[in-house]
């Protein structure tokens, strides 16, 4: 527990040229992930806040849509994804919050490391938080609405869908923190960009849970994968330009 992030950063490990070996690169990524998880394990604010938030969103939908047995089956998957999206967006808003509040982003940028390692580290730590939230939400949906959600394919599409959403979200959060109104700016930037992966994930989830065969949702499934791949490329290529200045 006392293995604080600072002590793992032994400076002789890093060259001053920004071309570390693969091993060093992942070491930096691991350090950043571990730092975020460590902070969260001590503060315990993010996960608990997101949990309460998700419960409330679910409750609001239950009453707003009057989810009785007949309508439930049609809209539950949509409600589930909206809950994911809202919770992830709140989580994303906190991605760079520690760095922003304590002005430590400058410190990270000054250290002789590859900037994309910062992005990859930040993305993976956010993705871990999103997955934890999903692990909480899915059983909750199962208990409250009695929908069988534990199909491996469905869980896979949840992982792939939130992968793309968190990926683009992390990229756009690093944009949003530069503006005056960052909490409002993130959804404005992120929702239209992430529309394709949300639409495809909802289509896919609906098809899987209603027992459709592969041919009926293969297009949507492929689109989720294509989106993930394209935005990995875009994020890696553009993050340098975002963070540099």
């Amino acid at each position, binding site marked *: 527990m006392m293995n604080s992030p600072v002590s793992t950063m032994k400076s002789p490990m890093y060259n001053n040229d920004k071309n570390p070996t693969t091993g060093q690169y992942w070491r930096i990524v691991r350090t950043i992930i571990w730092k975020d998880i460590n902070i969260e394990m001590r503060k315990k604010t993010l996960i608990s806040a997101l949990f309460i938030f998700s419960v409330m969103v679910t409750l609001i939908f239950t009453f707003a849509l009057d989810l009785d047995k007949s309508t439930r089956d049609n809209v539950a998957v949509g409600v589930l994804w909206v809950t994911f999206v809202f919770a992830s967006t709140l989580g994303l808003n906190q991605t760079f919050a520690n760095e922003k509040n304590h002005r430590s982003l400058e410190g990270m940028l000054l250290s002789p490391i590859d900037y994309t390692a910062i992005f990859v580290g930040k993305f993976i730590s956010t993705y871990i938080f999103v997955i934890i939230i999903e692990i909480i939400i899915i059983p909750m949906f199962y208990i409250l609405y009695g929908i069988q959600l534990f199909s491996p394919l469905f869980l896979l599409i949840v992982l792939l869908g939130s992968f793309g959403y968190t990926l*683009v979200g992390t*990229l*756009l959060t690093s*944009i949003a923190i*530069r*503006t*005056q*109104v960052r909490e409002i*700016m993130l959804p*404005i*930037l992120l*929702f*239209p*960009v*992430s*529309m*394709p*992966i949300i*639409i*495809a994930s909802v*289509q896919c989830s609906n098809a899987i849970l209603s027992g459709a065969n592969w041919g009926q949702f293969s*297009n*949507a499934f492929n*689109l989720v994968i*294509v*989106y993930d791949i*394209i*935005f990995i490329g*875009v994020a890696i290529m*553009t993050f340098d*330009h*975002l963070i*540099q*200045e």
Partner: protein
Amino acid sequence: MLRTNSRLKLMTVSSLILIILSIYMVLIYAPREVVMGEIQRIFYYHVASGWIAALAFLVTLITSIMFLATQNERHDHVAMSSAEIGVIFTTMNIVSGSIWARPVWNTWWTWDPRLTTATIMWLLYIAYLFLHAGLEGHDRRRHITAVYGIVAFISVPLTFMAIRIWRTIHPVVIGSADPDAEGQFDMTARMTTTLLFTVSTFTVLYLTILWHRVRIQSLFEYMSKLQYQMYND
């Protein structure tokens, strides 16, 4: 760039003349469509504004990439100006389509794939303009909006695929027609001429507005530099 430009004046005057000619072409030269009647004439401007929107966003993409590659601030001016014009033309495209759809589809709006894609594209570039307005510092703003300009353009074809059910009620006049489309018609020779004319008119108009807008932006930044110098002396 900074002085009044005779070529720009020529462009402005010629786009004015072309617009007047295109009004004549659309309202008088083009024949009346048999089934839909006069409302079909909106089609010429609808297609032209849609084409300009796509062109404008493509220009934003290309100049954004060029800006990140070369760091030349001129590219950033073009990217931002083009996105602004694109948003205006997308709005025209959506509004004209909606007016046409009221009598033909019997509704102002429907969540057809084509319409949904257009709306998302519209929102993406409005977000782009928001971002441009919300960022402080010239250098920071240029880098960040350039990245968003690239991200925004990529998500347009993806959205198009995401909701692409092969049946759409939106008519496809150019190329193969979908039997499910409502408001389908075949173009006569005069209609084709009119369409080509309005599309070229709008392209000239787009280039003219773009030129004006880039010039205003350059002047604006030149002025900021002068002000900065003045206050620091």
